[in-house]
């Protein structure tokens, strides 16, 4: 099993999220995270889906998602050629304020709210960075946290929306399936 990030352009219409979620549920694909929001085009929304699958299942997921009528384009977002970011908001006990602030500075995070008992910290970074920050903050007492789920955008001038008017809105950057992936 390995993690894959998919970017999905969908029509901005009611029920699209339910369709995608229903598909993942029905075909027993596990989602690690799903982030959805508006795009530069008011008619389109963009989903970023992270999932943990192996070989030919990824091809299946992409083909099945692409088959949904409201899905306009789907592409894998490999780490090498895309920018990946997650947003974390975390509430930490303010008892050892100086030490916490040092960590915040080291991780390029920032304090967005504070009172006598708690600091609320924001960090936007790649997943590994977020994980490391959380690991370092844990000893100080995490009261609550929320994460946005991963979002990703291709580097350079390439844009997923360029594919919306082309014949094939599906793109895998490499041949994923091999015969060895199958039972036979």
């Amino acid at each position, binding site marked *: 099993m390995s993690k894959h990030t998919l970017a999905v352009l969908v*029509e901005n219409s009611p029920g699209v999220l339910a369709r995608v979620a229903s598909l993942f549920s029905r075909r027993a694909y596990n989602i690690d995270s799903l982030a959805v929001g508006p795009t530069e085009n008011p008619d389109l929304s963009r989903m970023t889906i992270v999932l943990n699958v192996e070989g030919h299942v990824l*091809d299946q997921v992409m*083909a099945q998602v*692409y*088959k949904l009528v409201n899905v306009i384009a789907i592409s894998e977002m490999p780490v090498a050629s895309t920018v990946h970011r997650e947003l974390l908001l975390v509430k930490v006990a303010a008892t050892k304020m100086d030490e916490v602030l040092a960590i915040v500075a080291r991780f390029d995070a920032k304090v967005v709210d504070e009172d006598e008992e708690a600091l609320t910290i924001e960090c936007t970074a790649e997943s590994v960075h977020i994980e490391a920050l959380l690991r370092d903050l844990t000893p100080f007492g995490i009261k609550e946290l929320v994460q946005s789920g991963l979002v990703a955008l291709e580097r350079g001038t390439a844009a997923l929306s360029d594919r919306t008017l082309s*014949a094939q809105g*599906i793109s895998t950057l490499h041949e994923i399936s091999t015969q060895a992936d199958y039972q036979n």
Partner: protein
Amino acid sequence: MSKEMTGAASLVKSLEAAGVDVMFGIPGGAILPAYDPIFDSKIRHILVRHEQGAGHAATGYAQATGRTGVCIVTSGPGATNLVTALADAQMDSVPLVAITGQVPSAAIGTDAFQEADIRGITMPITKHNYLITDPDDIPRAIAEAFHIASTGRPGPVLVDIAKDALQKMTTFKYPTKIQLAGYKPQVEPEDEAIRDAAALIAKSSKPVLFVGGGVIKANAHKELMRLAELIGAPVVTTLMARGAFPDSHPQHLGMPGMHGTVAAVTALQKADLLITLGARFDDRVTGKLSSFAVNAKVIHADIDPAEIGKNRYADVAVIGDLMYTIKALIPAVQAEFKKSKPDLTAWWRQMSSLRETYPLGYTTPEDGSLSPQYVIERIGAIAGPDSIYVAGVGQHQMWASQFVKYENPRTWLNSGGLGTMGYAVPAAMGAKVGMPDTTVWAIDGDGCFQMTNQELVTCALNNIPIKVAIINNESLGMVRQWQTMFYESRYSNTSLQSKFIPDFVKLADAMGCVGLRCERAEDVDAVIKEAMAINDQPVVVDFRVFKDAMVWPMVAAGASNDDIMIARGLAPDWDSQEL
């Protein structure tokens, strides 16, 4: 400026513009506004007795004619009663448009009377669906629904329309061109894929044409014939493809799968190349996947890219409409064959030997009772290859696929993927409506028949003279067969006692049909001919048959196709076969 009209009138005008000639339905509160303009429309509306019947009738109509079937029902229970038929159509890729009424838009989400979230419920069992709350959206939604249902891989599309959208005023403008950013089925195959496929075919000494229902959907049976005769390979037709290739053709080895012929099953198992045309490697065909056709390379041609590699790795994927794909393959294969044409003599020697040694057959019951296979075989022989045969699900379905000889596409209708008991009577009704001049036989089981027989009333009242053969073994026969084989003959809840109650002859009579009964082999032909002679009323024949007849051959669920049995505990004598 175009004329103002209600959303309901716009709906009916849209259906007319889509070319609908008939629809099956039942009115109710939320859809009621639509039924007023339906009253004046040239579209024939057939009032069914249960919404499931409307759905299967639309399916039968679509499968028999190739046109999109239409059903229309109300909100809540009307819509949920349609669910089985939609799931059935989705599994068997049937072009269907279902119109459902919905509670007024202001009431949606309030658990209003007869409210059900049918769009949510049917998301996983439709190709696409709509919820319309603005009357201006009705023509576009209907046009898109027909476009989506009938193109690409066909499937059911549901259009749920809020009652107030039907009541409000709007103007009617039917779209002439449909452009959907997210729906562009690939019709023409890639040249490279065709060349790769042809190259594999030219190298194969043990090829099999593995034909699925997609060939019938694509109306590509004539092209298939040309390709098959060009390659000269054995042909197998799956349950959904019966009729795509004539049973009388010398290259046809019959149906593969759980109850397929020994020759067809073995051809797939021993092949070095599967030329897969519109089949989806269903578990009922492959048996245990890891031991399915282990030495075969696979060419997989399908219009649905998501089918490629779903269950079995495809060495060559050809995405496109099979009509185009097969037409492109023919010259490509001819070109390859000019360079070298493989010799299939040895392969055919093996397959012919299997076909001769293990033909489909059955034994006559020792207790003198009627053999179900004989009944079905005689119906097929007397009604002939130009009739349409519609089966329910179970033993009778398998026998009807085995012992009726199919020569033409769209003459064999059944619920293959979902396995919906109760499919036969309403689907036969729909088929007869679509093909009024063709004899339509429903070959049904006594269990199936009792699920949906109320549509015989619809048939009797609307001059839809179908013929129903109830293969009455007074049990849920296929389940009983599994109990015999895998549950030590402990017949838990499979006895229906249908030779006792109901009296099918009286039931037929009560529903305005002619009821006949047959219990002896010597009467079978006469009864079938009597039924064939009646064309102004539906006919129901209660064939009282042997209870313990079994469907053979059989590959047990989850077993390898190599473990096919030709009778209980009896495998083919592989040692005597040169394989």
